[in-house]
């Protein structure tokens, strides 16, 4: 049954609709520009609109770094100021043409953002906040005090615009065009590989690293883009107002930008534009509040965080999605998943070898000199009582934790010091004991992140363009061009685990068992050679566990090697070819299930000593 019969549209339909959307968008932009050229506006209104447009561009930068990537940036006014002063000094003191000065401003802002990001994004949260505030403060100090260069508190007047745009009307048209272009860019960014990586980092940085996203590089990219847009907005702002001074780019303005993006909603471009518009126009309408408008901003920020953290647009979107029932998704025909990168056979060769692996936390030896060999195309289980070091061992194999000693070799390559995302690239996949999905993304997007990181799959020329876009039009997060092969691969992974029908759903709406399957699909989409499963059976009922066992056997049949931790011995016995047992961080047994589960040390580890010689103080029992 083909999906085109289902939707009644031709294969060209979706592409045509996107073209139409773009056309309408461009038309709207042209209409807005025409309006400001034709309608006579007072200088005051023109200034207001120009401020709104240029501020919105800077706020869209915050959408990228805060909304998409979840990183805080309290120096957006500093980047805005760098762009503004570049144009100001460039066109006056250095007599450069406007466009050159603008380009320089954008580059300087982006460069500053990159440097700041590279140095502070390794540390999290509040460190970044402090570094950005510090940078902001230092810049204000420099702008105010380096009078010889920046003209100090008096500011820089008589900034020159390009000759053709010398009038306010046309210049405003430029700003509007720039805003439309930037908003389009930011919107499309969300559905690119980088955009998905950003959202993954925001939702669950650890899981992002493990599926192959270089979280650090992604955060730096987001921060740099944010600074770039800040500089761009500032450059346009300088040309518009023809005068800049240091107090326009202080920490207070950074707070204003932040409030705009929070009020409107950080997760999508319309939020940025909405927030900017409201906060620029509102004070005009509430002129009597002008004295305390910043105080109101401060209070508003608190209230927004408590009651409406997604902002107005985010709240509206949540309502919209609640009212619309989830459409059942028919993916049509899905080609079977091409799982492994090479043909794999159970040939006894070693895929992962571990020698003398240790992990100490201070005095505690969580993992103590462990040797382990995982053979290709087998199911290898790791068991042991609570606190025996299983998860620590897995984290060390995965790269989340640095071992204190020992060597890990994947197919002969020493990976002991590689970060998790690089190991994913070499073929290690993993799921977590506490499911780590990207909560704000759809099921399909989650799996696509797994598929495209760290290297996207090579798309065979013949496959491109054969995507039936009608199968995918209603998915949250629009389909990107050229991503056809990627989506089909992701769908194939979902189909393999049996939940392709829920591809369009938000992950939060799935049952626990299904979320578990999505996590497995995400790992499979990366075409791993070796798949680590950390307690995949946890929280599943008997029926779901039976399905899991069947899934594992199918995976093995396709050539995958599986390394599994679990406590359900019945399940482990059914699937495992080989079992390693840990206790107190040491390996106490290693062999086939029948050998291991009868091993006396293993029985003692789980059940305790046979009738210990303890005086039975049962009293009158």
């Amino acid at each position, binding site marked *: 049954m083909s999906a085109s019969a289902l939707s009644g549209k031709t294969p060209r339909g979706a592409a045509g609709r996107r073209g139409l959307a773009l056309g309408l968008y461009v038309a709207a932009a042209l209409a807005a520009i025409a309006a400001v050229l034709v309608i006579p506006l007072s200088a005051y209104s023109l200034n207001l609109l120009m401020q709104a447009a240029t501020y919105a561009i800077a706020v869209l930068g915050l959408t990228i770094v805060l909304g998409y990537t979840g990183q805080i940036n309290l120096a957006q006014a500093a980047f805005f100021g760098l762009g503004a002063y570049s144009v100001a000094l460039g066109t006056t003191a250095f007599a450069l043409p406007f466009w050159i000065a603008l380009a320089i401003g954008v580059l300087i802002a982006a460069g500053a953002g990159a440097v700041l990001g590279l140095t502070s994004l390794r540390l999290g949260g509040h460190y970044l906040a402090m570094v950005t505030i510090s940078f902001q403060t230092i810049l204000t100090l420099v702008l105010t005090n380096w009078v010889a260069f920046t003209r100090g508190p008096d500011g820089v007047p008589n900034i020159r615009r390009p000759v053709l745009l010398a009038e306010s009307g046309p210049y405003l048209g430029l700003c509007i065009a720039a805003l439309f272009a930037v908003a389009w860019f930011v919107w499309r960014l969300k559905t690119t590989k980088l955009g998905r990586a950003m959202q993954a980092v925001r939702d669950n940085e650890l899981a992002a690293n493990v599926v192959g996203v270089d979280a650090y590089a992604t955060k730096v990219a987001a921060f740099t883009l944010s600074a770039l847009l800040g500089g761009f907005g500032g450059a346009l702002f300088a040309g518009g107002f023809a005068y800049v001074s240091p107090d326009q780019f202080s920490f207070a303005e950074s707070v204003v930008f932040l409030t705009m993006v929070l009020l409107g909603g950080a997760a999508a471009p319309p939020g940025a534009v909405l927030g900017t518009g409201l906060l620029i126009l509102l004070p005009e309408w509430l002129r009597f509040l002008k004295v305390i408008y910043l105080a109101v901003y401060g209070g508003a920020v608190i209230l927004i965080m408590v009651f409406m953290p997604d902002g107005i647009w985010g709240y509206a979107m949540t309502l919209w999605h609640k009212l619309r029932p989830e459409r059942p998704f028919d993916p049509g025909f899905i080609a079977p998943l091409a799982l492994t990168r090479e043909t794999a056979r159970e040939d006894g060769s070693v895929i992962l070898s571990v020698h003398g692996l240790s992990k100490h936390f201070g005095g505690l030896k969580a993992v103590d000199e462990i040797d382990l060999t995982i053979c290709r195309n087998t199911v290898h289980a790791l068991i042991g*009582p*609570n*606190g025996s070091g299983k998860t620590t061992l897995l984290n060390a194999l995965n790269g989340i934790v640095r071992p204190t000693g020992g060597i890990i070799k994947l197919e002969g390559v020493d990976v002991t010091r590689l970060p998790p995302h690089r190991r994913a690239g070499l073929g290690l996949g993993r799921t977590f004991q506490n499911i780590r999905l990207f909560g704000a993304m759809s099921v399909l997007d989650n799996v696509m992140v797994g598929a495209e990181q760290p290297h996207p799959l090579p798309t065979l020329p013949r496959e491109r363009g054969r995507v039936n876009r009608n199968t995918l039009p209603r998915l949250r997060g629009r389909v990107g061009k050229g991503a056809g092969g990627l989506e089909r691969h992701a769908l194939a992974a979902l189909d393999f685990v049996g939940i392709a029908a829920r591809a369009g759903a938000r992950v939060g709406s799935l*049952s*626990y068992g299904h*979320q578990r399957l999505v996590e497995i699909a995400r790992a499979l989409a990366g075409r791993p050679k070796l798949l680590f499963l950390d*307690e995949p059976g*946890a*929280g599943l*009922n008997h029926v779901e566990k039976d399905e899991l066992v069947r899934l594992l056997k199918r995976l093995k049949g396709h050539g995958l090697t599986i390394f599994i931790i679990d*406590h*359900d*011995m*019945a*399940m*482990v*016995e*059914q699937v495992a070819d080989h079992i390693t047992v840990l206790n*107190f961080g040491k390996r106490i047994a290693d062999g086939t299930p029948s050998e291991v*589960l009868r091993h006396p040390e293993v*029985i003692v580890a*789980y*059940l*305790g*000593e*046979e*009738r*210990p010689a*303890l*005086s*039975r*103080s*049962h*009293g009158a*029992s």
Partner: protein
Amino acid sequence: MALLELENVVAAYGNIRALQGLTLAVEEGEIVALLGANGAGKSTTLRVISGLMPPQSGMLRFAGRSIGGLSPGAIVKLGVAHVPEGRRVFPGLTVRENIILGGSNRERPGRAELEADAEKMFGVFPEIKPFEAALGWTLSGGQQQMVAIARGLMSKPKLLLLDEPSLGLAPLIVQQVYRVIADIRRDGTTVLLVEQNAHMALSVADRGYVLETGQLVVHGKPEALWDNEDVRTAYLGGRRT
């Protein structure tokens, strides 16, 4: 009337149902063992009893009073002390300070009275008296376990909830801990004991319950449980062979 009664208690962490209708009872003066593999719901049961986690549905009664949904502070004042998994001795406080804080549930905790009771604890746990001024994080696992139990006893509980007291401890230390547990019962405190180490627990318990995925599978006297196939399979599998 039993000291502690649970009737069809259901509890969940978000989506995951950890307890699916659990019914059990603990009579005054008993030591009851709660056994089962990891993830069976044993720790969750204790967390629900002590108020760290609210039950979704079902009855919880202590000394006839309904306690479901009460805060941990209220429940410890009623006489239920919870010594959680992993000991959780306050790392930056001394042994003596840790123990004294165990008396925080009293109405009017006079410093002198607390110090005197702490001294009595050192009498019960002479092994830790030499360490009374040592900071929590410097202690060994066994020492921490003793401190945690002493701290729990300071609240003068009628019911002591012990979560995996043998976790991570060497066998010899485990035996010491279990000697203490037997002594506690002799002094009149009822004990509900969660353990993965079934042997140790059954060697000191009057009765045992075995849990699997949040439900009771079997219960009875230790001898009966020990010879029970279901207990072995709950831990080591083999049901389907």
